Protein backbone atom coordinates (compact mmCIF):
# COMPACT_ATOMS: atom_id res chain seq x y z
CA UNK A 1 0.00 0.00 0.00
CA UNK A 2 1.62 3.19 -1.16
CA UNK A 3 1.32 6.57 0.43
CA UNK A 4 0.01 9.23 -1.94
CA UNK A 5 2.67 11.89 -2.48
CA UNK A 6 1.14 15.31 -1.92
CA UNK A 7 1.27 17.34 -5.10
CA UNK A 8 2.92 14.67 -7.25
CA UNK A 9 1.81 15.01 -10.87
CA UNK A 10 3.30 12.30 -13.08
CA UNK A 11 5.08 13.55 -16.19
CA UNK A 12 6.32 10.36 -17.74
CA UNK A 13 3.47 7.90 -17.57
CA UNK A 14 3.97 5.33 -20.31
CA UNK A 15 1.25 5.19 -22.97
CA UNK A 16 -1.40 2.57 -22.21
CA UNK A 17 -0.12 0.24 -24.93
CA UNK A 18 3.35 0.24 -23.40
CA UNK A 19 2.44 -0.10 -19.75
CA UNK A 20 1.87 -3.84 -20.05
CA UNK A 21 5.45 -4.21 -21.32
CA UNK A 22 6.92 -2.23 -18.44
CA UNK A 23 7.71 -4.23 -15.30
CA UNK A 24 6.63 -2.69 -11.98
CA UNK A 25 8.79 0.17 -10.72
CA UNK A 26 10.43 0.74 -14.13
CA UNK A 27 10.28 3.73 -16.44
CA UNK A 28 11.10 4.00 -20.14
CA UNK A 29 14.26 5.64 -21.37
CA UNK A 30 15.17 6.60 -24.89
CA UNK A 31 18.89 6.63 -24.14
CA UNK A 32 21.13 3.77 -23.15
CA UNK A 33 22.51 4.55 -19.68
CA UNK A 34 25.81 2.99 -18.63
CA UNK A 35 26.32 1.45 -15.21
CA UNK A 36 29.55 -0.33 -14.32
CA UNK A 37 31.47 -0.82 -11.11
CA UNK A 38 34.88 0.08 -12.47
CA UNK A 39 36.90 1.25 -15.45
CA UNK A 40 35.93 -0.05 -18.88
CA UNK A 41 38.37 -2.86 -19.76
CA UNK A 42 39.81 -2.89 -23.27
CA UNK A 43 41.07 -6.32 -24.21
CA UNK A 44 42.56 -6.47 -27.75
CA UNK A 45 40.54 -8.82 -29.95
CA UNK A 46 43.64 -10.89 -30.71
CA UNK A 47 43.86 -11.71 -26.99
CA UNK A 48 40.14 -12.25 -26.53
CA UNK A 49 38.72 -15.73 -26.02
CA UNK A 50 35.40 -17.08 -24.86
CA UNK A 51 35.51 -20.23 -22.73
CA UNK A 52 33.16 -22.74 -21.20
CA UNK A 53 34.79 -24.07 -18.04
CA UNK A 54 33.88 -26.56 -15.35
CA UNK A 55 35.69 -27.62 -12.18
CA UNK A 56 38.83 -25.77 -13.21
CA UNK A 57 38.98 -27.32 -16.67
CA UNK A 58 38.44 -25.50 -19.96
CA UNK A 59 35.88 -27.59 -21.81
CA UNK A 60 35.89 -25.44 -24.93
CA UNK A 61 37.42 -22.14 -25.93
CA UNK A 62 36.95 -19.93 -28.98
CA UNK A 63 39.17 -17.17 -30.31
CA UNK A 64 37.45 -14.00 -31.52
CA UNK A 65 37.66 -15.24 -35.14
CA UNK A 66 36.30 -18.66 -34.21
CA UNK A 67 33.56 -17.11 -32.14
CA UNK A 68 32.52 -14.74 -34.90
CA UNK A 69 32.37 -17.65 -37.33
CA UNK A 70 29.63 -19.32 -35.26
CA UNK A 71 26.06 -18.90 -36.49
CA UNK A 72 24.53 -15.78 -34.96
CA UNK A 73 21.02 -14.52 -34.47
CA UNK A 74 19.40 -11.12 -34.57
CA UNK A 75 17.62 -10.46 -31.28
CA UNK A 76 15.08 -7.74 -30.52
CA UNK A 77 14.33 -7.46 -26.83
CA UNK A 78 13.08 -5.17 -24.08
CA UNK A 79 15.71 -4.69 -21.37
CA UNK A 80 15.21 -3.73 -17.74
CA UNK A 81 17.92 -2.30 -15.47
CA UNK A 82 17.62 -2.68 -11.69
CA UNK A 83 18.27 1.08 -11.42
CA UNK A 84 14.77 1.41 -12.94
CA UNK A 85 15.20 2.28 -16.57
CA UNK A 86 13.77 0.03 -19.23
CA UNK A 87 14.37 0.25 -22.93
CA UNK A 88 12.11 -1.33 -25.51
CA UNK A 89 13.01 -3.04 -28.77
CA UNK A 90 16.78 -3.03 -28.39
CA UNK A 91 18.44 -4.77 -31.34
CA UNK A 92 21.34 -7.12 -30.84
CA UNK A 93 23.34 -9.74 -32.70
CA UNK A 94 24.89 -12.65 -30.91
CA UNK A 95 25.54 -16.35 -30.60
CA UNK A 96 22.92 -18.34 -28.68
CA UNK A 97 24.32 -19.74 -25.44
CA UNK A 98 22.58 -23.02 -26.33
CA UNK A 99 25.00 -23.47 -29.21
CA UNK A 100 28.06 -22.81 -27.06
CA UNK A 101 27.00 -25.26 -24.36
CA UNK A 102 26.29 -27.94 -26.96
CA UNK A 103 29.71 -27.47 -28.53
CA UNK A 104 31.34 -27.63 -25.12
CA UNK A 105 29.26 -30.65 -24.14
CA UNK A 106 28.63 -28.82 -20.90
CA UNK A 107 26.00 -29.82 -18.42
CA UNK A 108 25.34 -28.42 -14.94
CA UNK A 109 22.43 -26.71 -13.19
CA UNK A 110 24.10 -23.27 -12.84
CA UNK A 111 26.62 -21.01 -14.51
CA UNK A 112 28.81 -18.20 -13.27
CA UNK A 113 29.55 -15.72 -16.05
CA UNK A 114 33.08 -14.32 -15.76
CA UNK A 115 34.36 -11.15 -17.34
CA UNK A 116 37.27 -8.83 -17.96
CA UNK A 117 37.59 -6.57 -14.94
CA UNK A 118 36.67 -9.36 -12.54
CA UNK A 119 32.89 -9.02 -12.75
CA UNK A 120 30.85 -12.17 -12.25
CA UNK A 121 27.16 -13.00 -12.16
CA UNK A 122 25.33 -16.25 -11.44
CA UNK A 123 22.45 -17.75 -13.39
CA UNK A 124 20.56 -21.03 -13.62
CA UNK A 125 21.44 -22.88 -16.82
CA UNK A 126 17.71 -23.02 -17.54
CA UNK A 127 17.78 -19.23 -17.91
CA UNK A 128 20.63 -19.15 -20.41
CA UNK A 129 19.31 -21.97 -22.61
CA UNK A 130 16.11 -22.52 -24.55
CA UNK A 131 16.74 -19.54 -26.82
CA UNK A 132 16.71 -17.05 -23.92
CA UNK A 133 20.36 -15.93 -23.79
CA UNK A 134 23.10 -14.91 -26.19
CA UNK A 135 26.70 -13.79 -26.21
CA UNK A 136 26.03 -10.53 -28.02
CA UNK A 137 28.68 -8.66 -30.01
CA UNK A 138 26.45 -6.41 -32.10
CA UNK A 139 24.14 -3.60 -31.07
CA UNK A 140 21.87 -1.46 -33.21
CA UNK A 141 23.46 -2.61 -36.44
CA UNK A 142 27.08 -2.02 -35.41
CA UNK A 143 29.67 -3.46 -33.06
CA UNK A 144 28.93 -3.31 -29.34
CA UNK A 145 30.65 -0.27 -27.77
CA UNK A 146 33.14 -0.99 -24.98
CA UNK A 147 31.16 1.08 -22.46
CA UNK A 148 28.13 -1.11 -23.17
CA UNK A 149 30.15 -4.29 -22.75
CA UNK A 150 31.95 -4.75 -26.05
CA UNK A 151 33.50 -6.67 -27.60
CA UNK A 152 30.88 -9.08 -26.24
CA UNK A 153 28.43 -9.29 -23.37
CA UNK A 154 25.99 -11.82 -22.08
CA UNK A 155 22.42 -10.94 -23.07
CA UNK A 156 19.67 -12.37 -20.86
CA UNK A 157 16.85 -9.90 -21.42
CA UNK A 158 14.25 -11.63 -19.25
CA UNK A 159 16.29 -10.89 -16.09
CA UNK A 160 17.46 -7.53 -14.68
CA UNK A 161 20.24 -6.29 -16.86
CA UNK A 162 23.08 -6.70 -14.34
CA UNK A 163 22.77 -10.40 -15.22
CA UNK A 164 23.68 -9.51 -18.81
CA UNK A 165 27.34 -9.31 -17.89
CA UNK A 166 29.48 -6.85 -19.84
CA UNK A 167 32.90 -7.83 -21.22
CA UNK A 168 32.03 -11.49 -20.74
CA UNK A 169 34.83 -13.98 -21.32
CA UNK A 170 33.16 -17.22 -20.41
CA UNK A 171 30.72 -19.30 -18.44
CA UNK A 172 31.79 -21.55 -15.59
CA UNK A 173 29.45 -24.50 -15.10
CA UNK A 174 28.55 -24.97 -11.44
CA UNK A 175 26.74 -27.55 -9.35
CA UNK A 176 25.52 -24.89 -6.89
CA UNK A 177 24.09 -21.38 -7.26
CA UNK A 178 26.73 -19.12 -5.74
CA UNK A 179 26.32 -15.33 -5.70
CA UNK A 180 28.26 -13.29 -8.25
CA UNK A 181 29.54 -9.74 -7.88
CA UNK A 182 26.40 -7.66 -7.30
CA UNK A 183 24.64 -10.60 -5.70
CA UNK A 184 27.30 -10.57 -2.97
CA UNK A 185 26.62 -6.88 -2.41
CA UNK A 186 22.99 -7.36 -1.59
CA UNK A 187 21.35 -7.69 -4.98
CA UNK A 188 18.88 -10.49 -5.64
CA UNK A 189 20.24 -13.95 -6.41
CA UNK A 190 17.90 -14.38 -9.43
CA UNK A 191 16.63 -10.93 -10.52
CA UNK A 192 13.23 -11.32 -12.17
CA UNK A 193 12.07 -7.80 -13.12
CA UNK A 194 8.41 -8.84 -13.22
CA UNK A 195 8.65 -9.86 -9.56
CA UNK A 196 10.79 -6.80 -8.69
CA UNK A 197 13.57 -9.02 -7.37
CA UNK A 198 15.98 -6.12 -6.96
CA UNK A 199 17.63 -6.80 -3.63
CA UNK A 200 18.17 -9.86 -1.44
CA UNK A 201 14.90 -10.68 0.29
CA UNK A 202 12.67 -9.12 -2.39
Amino acid at each position, binding site marked *: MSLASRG*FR*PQHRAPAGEQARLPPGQHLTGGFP*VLSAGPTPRTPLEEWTFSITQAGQVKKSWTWAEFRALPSQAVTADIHCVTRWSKFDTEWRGVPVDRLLVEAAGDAPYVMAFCDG*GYTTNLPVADVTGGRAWIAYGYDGGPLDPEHGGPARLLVPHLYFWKSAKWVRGLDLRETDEPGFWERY*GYHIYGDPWKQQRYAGD
Partner: protein
Amino acid sequence: METTAIRGRLNWQAARVISVSWETASVATIELEPPDWAGHRAGQHVDVRLTAEDGYTAERSYSIASAPGEPLAITVERLEDGEVSPYLAGELRAGDELELRGPIGGYFVWGPSDGGPLTLLAGGSGVVPLRSMLRHRVSTRSGAQARLLYSARGWEDVIYRDELGQYGDGIRVSYTLTRSHPPGWTGHTGRIDSALLAEVAWPAGANPLAYICGPTSFVEAAAAGLVGLGYPPERVKTERFGATGGR
Protein backbone atom coordinates in the same frame (compact mmCIF):
# COMPACT_ATOMS: atom_id res chain seq x y z
CA MET B 1 36.45 -7.38 -0.18
CA GLU B 2 34.03 -6.49 2.52
CA THR B 3 30.47 -7.34 1.71
CA THR B 4 27.29 -5.99 3.20
CA ALA B 5 24.83 -8.37 4.69
CA ILE B 6 21.44 -6.86 4.06
CA ARG B 7 19.20 -7.59 6.99
CA GLY B 8 16.30 -9.45 5.45
CA ARG B 9 14.01 -7.60 3.14
CA LEU B 10 14.33 -3.85 2.72
CA ASN B 11 10.84 -2.61 3.35
CA TRP B 12 9.32 0.59 2.06
CA GLN B 13 8.69 3.08 4.82
CA ALA B 14 7.31 6.58 5.08
CA ALA B 15 10.05 8.96 6.19
CA ARG B 16 9.23 12.40 7.52
CA VAL B 17 10.85 15.31 5.73
CA ILE B 18 12.70 17.33 8.35
CA SER B 19 14.02 20.03 6.07
CA VAL B 20 14.65 20.98 2.47
CA SER B 21 17.60 23.29 1.94
CA TRP B 22 19.00 24.62 -1.31
CA GLU B 23 22.62 23.98 -2.23
CA THR B 24 22.37 25.74 -5.61
CA ALA B 25 19.49 27.12 -7.69
CA SER B 26 18.60 23.61 -8.82
CA VAL B 27 19.98 21.31 -6.11
CA ALA B 28 18.32 20.62 -2.77
CA THR B 29 19.36 18.61 0.26
CA ILE B 30 16.47 16.81 1.92
CA GLU B 31 16.87 15.68 5.51
CA LEU B 32 14.69 12.71 6.38
CA GLU B 33 13.58 10.81 9.42
CA PRO B 34 12.63 7.22 8.59
CA PRO B 35 10.89 5.31 11.39
CA ASP B 36 13.17 2.28 11.00
CA TRP B 37 16.76 3.06 10.14
CA ALA B 38 19.72 1.03 11.32
CA GLY B 39 22.28 3.37 9.80
CA HIS B 40 24.17 3.40 6.53
CA ARG B 41 27.67 3.37 5.09
CA ALA B 42 29.22 6.25 3.20
CA GLY B 43 28.49 5.85 -0.51
CA GLN B 44 25.24 3.91 -0.22
CA HIS B 45 21.93 5.00 -1.72
CA VAL B 46 18.21 4.83 -1.04
CA ASP B 47 15.30 4.08 -3.30
CA VAL B 48 12.53 6.69 -3.32
CA ARG B 49 8.96 6.07 -4.45
CA LEU B 50 6.35 8.67 -5.37
CA THR B 51 2.70 7.73 -5.69
CA ALA B 52 0.09 9.75 -7.58
CA GLU B 53 -3.53 9.99 -6.47
CA ASP B 54 -4.54 7.26 -8.93
CA GLY B 55 -1.90 4.85 -7.67
CA TYR B 56 0.69 5.45 -10.39
CA THR B 57 4.17 5.18 -8.90
CA ALA B 58 7.61 6.40 -9.93
CA GLU B 59 10.80 5.10 -8.29
CA ARG B 60 14.37 6.35 -8.42
CA SER B 61 17.60 5.85 -6.50
CA TYR B 62 19.47 8.69 -4.78
CA SER B 63 22.86 8.68 -3.12
CA ILE B 64 22.94 9.38 0.59
CA ALA B 65 24.56 12.74 1.27
CA SER B 66 25.02 12.50 5.02
CA ALA B 67 27.75 10.61 6.84
CA PRO B 68 27.07 7.48 8.88
CA GLY B 69 25.76 8.55 12.28
CA GLU B 70 24.17 11.72 10.93
CA PRO B 71 20.48 12.11 10.13
CA LEU B 72 19.64 10.61 6.74
CA ALA B 73 19.88 13.16 3.94
CA ILE B 74 19.80 12.99 0.16
CA THR B 75 20.87 15.69 -2.25
CA VAL B 76 18.85 15.90 -5.44
CA GLU B 77 19.52 17.84 -8.63
CA ARG B 78 16.36 19.05 -10.30
CA LEU B 79 16.33 17.77 -13.88
CA GLU B 80 13.81 19.78 -15.87
CA ASP B 81 12.80 16.80 -17.99
CA GLY B 82 12.75 14.48 -14.98
CA GLU B 83 9.75 13.05 -13.21
CA VAL B 84 10.90 12.48 -9.65
CA SER B 85 13.63 15.09 -9.18
CA PRO B 86 11.39 18.13 -9.95
CA TYR B 87 9.08 16.89 -7.23
CA LEU B 88 11.83 16.29 -4.68
CA ALA B 89 13.65 19.53 -5.48
CA GLY B 90 10.64 21.77 -5.98
CA GLU B 91 7.43 20.47 -4.47
CA LEU B 92 8.52 18.58 -1.36
CA ARG B 93 8.32 20.51 1.93
CA ALA B 94 9.30 19.94 5.55
CA GLY B 95 6.58 17.93 7.25
CA ASP B 96 5.73 15.90 4.13
CA GLU B 97 6.22 12.16 4.07
CA LEU B 98 8.42 10.45 1.52
CA GLU B 99 8.48 6.72 0.89
CA LEU B 100 11.90 5.17 0.75
CA ARG B 101 13.83 2.00 1.39
CA GLY B 102 17.48 1.35 2.02
CA PRO B 103 20.31 1.62 2.56
CA ILE B 104 21.37 -0.10 -0.66
CA GLY B 105 24.73 -0.96 -2.16
CA GLY B 106 27.85 -2.45 -0.66
CA TYR B 107 30.52 -1.82 -3.28
CA PHE B 108 30.79 1.92 -3.80
CA VAL B 109 31.31 2.52 -0.09
CA TRP B 110 34.14 3.78 2.05
CA GLY B 111 34.91 3.34 5.73
CA PRO B 112 38.04 4.00 7.78
CA SER B 113 39.05 0.34 7.48
CA ASP B 114 39.32 0.80 3.70
CA GLY B 115 42.12 3.28 4.35
CA GLY B 116 43.59 5.61 1.80
CA PRO B 117 44.92 7.76 0.40
CA LEU B 118 41.73 8.60 -1.43
CA THR B 119 41.37 10.02 -4.91
CA LEU B 120 37.78 11.21 -5.22
CA LEU B 121 36.56 12.41 -8.60
CA ALA B 122 33.15 14.04 -8.86
CA GLY B 123 31.22 15.13 -11.91
CA GLY B 124 28.27 17.40 -11.10
CA SER B 125 25.90 15.85 -8.57
CA GLY B 126 28.23 12.85 -8.47
CA VAL B 127 29.82 14.71 -5.57
CA VAL B 128 27.00 13.57 -3.27
CA PRO B 129 28.26 10.11 -2.19
CA LEU B 130 31.83 11.44 -2.09
CA ARG B 131 30.72 14.17 0.31
CA SER B 132 29.30 11.46 2.56
CA MET B 133 32.73 9.81 2.51
CA LEU B 134 34.54 13.07 3.32
CA ARG B 135 32.22 13.82 6.23
CA HIS B 136 32.69 10.27 7.46
CA ARG B 137 36.43 10.65 7.23
CA VAL B 138 36.27 13.83 9.31
CA SER B 139 33.88 12.47 11.93
CA THR B 140 35.90 9.27 12.41
CA ARG B 141 39.18 11.22 12.47
CA SER B 142 40.49 8.75 9.90
CA GLY B 143 44.05 9.40 8.88
CA ALA B 144 43.26 8.67 5.22
CA GLN B 145 44.45 11.62 3.18
CA ALA B 146 41.92 12.63 0.53
CA ARG B 147 42.05 14.59 -2.68
CA LEU B 148 38.78 15.57 -4.29
CA LEU B 149 38.58 16.83 -7.85
CA TYR B 150 35.16 18.24 -8.57
CA SER B 151 34.11 19.00 -12.13
CA ALA B 152 31.17 21.40 -12.36
CA ARG B 153 29.66 23.49 -15.11
CA GLY B 154 30.18 26.77 -13.30
CA TRP B 155 31.04 28.07 -9.82
CA GLU B 156 27.35 28.66 -9.12
CA ASP B 157 26.70 24.96 -9.79
CA VAL B 158 29.11 23.72 -7.12
CA ILE B 159 27.19 21.78 -4.48
CA TYR B 160 28.38 21.98 -0.82
CA ARG B 161 30.62 24.89 -1.82
CA ASP B 162 31.01 26.38 1.65
CA GLU B 163 31.55 23.02 3.30
CA LEU B 164 34.13 21.90 0.76
CA GLY B 165 35.98 25.15 1.28
CA GLN B 166 36.25 24.57 5.02
CA TYR B 167 37.85 21.13 5.08
CA GLY B 168 41.27 21.38 6.55
CA ASP B 169 44.13 19.05 7.14
CA GLY B 170 44.28 15.95 5.07
CA ILE B 171 41.60 16.91 2.54
CA ARG B 172 42.48 18.83 -0.59
CA VAL B 173 39.71 20.00 -2.88
CA SER B 174 40.30 21.11 -6.48
CA TYR B 175 37.77 22.26 -9.01
CA THR B 176 37.55 22.32 -12.75
CA LEU B 177 34.82 24.42 -14.31
CA THR B 178 33.69 23.21 -17.71
CA ARG B 179 31.37 25.91 -19.05
CA SER B 180 31.91 29.20 -17.30
CA HIS B 181 34.05 30.62 -14.56
CA PRO B 182 33.96 33.77 -12.50
CA PRO B 183 36.25 36.72 -13.27
CA GLY B 184 39.67 36.13 -11.79
CA TRP B 185 39.16 32.35 -11.54
CA THR B 186 42.52 30.74 -10.92
CA GLY B 187 41.37 27.13 -10.69
CA HIS B 188 41.22 24.63 -13.50
CA THR B 189 38.90 24.90 -16.47
CA GLY B 190 37.69 22.42 -19.04
CA ARG B 191 36.85 18.77 -18.93
CA ILE B 192 38.86 16.29 -16.96
CA ASP B 193 41.86 14.82 -18.79
CA SER B 194 45.07 12.95 -18.10
CA ALA B 195 47.14 16.07 -17.54
CA LEU B 196 44.70 17.38 -14.93
CA LEU B 197 44.51 14.01 -13.20
CA ALA B 198 48.29 13.75 -13.14
CA GLU B 199 48.37 17.14 -11.42
CA VAL B 200 45.64 16.69 -8.80
CA ALA B 201 45.19 12.95 -8.13
CA TRP B 202 47.45 10.89 -5.91
CA PRO B 203 50.23 9.27 -7.90
CA ALA B 204 49.71 5.54 -8.42
CA GLY B 205 52.81 4.88 -6.32
CA ALA B 206 50.94 6.02 -3.21
CA ASN B 207 48.60 3.02 -3.68
CA PRO B 208 45.51 5.19 -3.63
CA LEU B 209 41.92 4.03 -3.60
CA ALA B 210 39.75 5.90 -6.10
CA TYR B 211 36.03 6.60 -6.13
CA ILE B 212 34.52 8.23 -9.21
CA CYS B 213 30.92 9.34 -9.51
CA GLY B 214 29.25 11.37 -12.21
CA PRO B 215 27.69 11.22 -15.64
CA THR B 216 28.89 8.43 -17.90
CA SER B 217 31.14 10.57 -20.10
CA PHE B 218 32.88 11.98 -17.03
CA VAL B 219 33.32 8.61 -15.37
CA GLU B 220 34.64 6.99 -18.55
CA ALA B 221 37.25 9.72 -18.99
CA ALA B 222 38.19 9.82 -15.32
CA ALA B 223 38.47 6.04 -14.88
CA ALA B 224 40.45 5.57 -18.09
CA GLY B 225 42.66 8.47 -17.03
CA LEU B 226 43.47 6.93 -13.65
CA VAL B 227 44.17 3.53 -15.20
CA GLY B 228 46.45 5.33 -17.64
CA LEU B 229 48.31 6.84 -14.67
CA GLY B 230 48.91 3.34 -13.35
CA TYR B 231 46.00 2.85 -10.95
CA PRO B 232 45.09 -0.86 -10.85
CA PRO B 233 41.49 -1.16 -12.17
CA GLU B 234 40.40 -2.94 -8.99
CA ARG B 235 41.37 0.16 -6.96
CA VAL B 236 39.06 2.34 -9.06
CA LYS B 237 35.41 2.18 -8.04
CA THR B 238 32.88 3.89 -10.22
CA GLU B 239 29.28 4.89 -10.07
CA ARG B 240 27.62 6.38 -13.15
CA PHE B 241 24.36 7.97 -13.98
CA GLY B 242 22.93 7.91 -17.44
CA ALA B 243 22.34 10.84 -19.75
CA THR B 244 18.64 10.38 -19.17
CA GLY B 245 18.91 11.48 -15.56
CA GLY B 246 17.89 8.20 -13.99
CA ARG B 247 19.56 9.05 -10.72
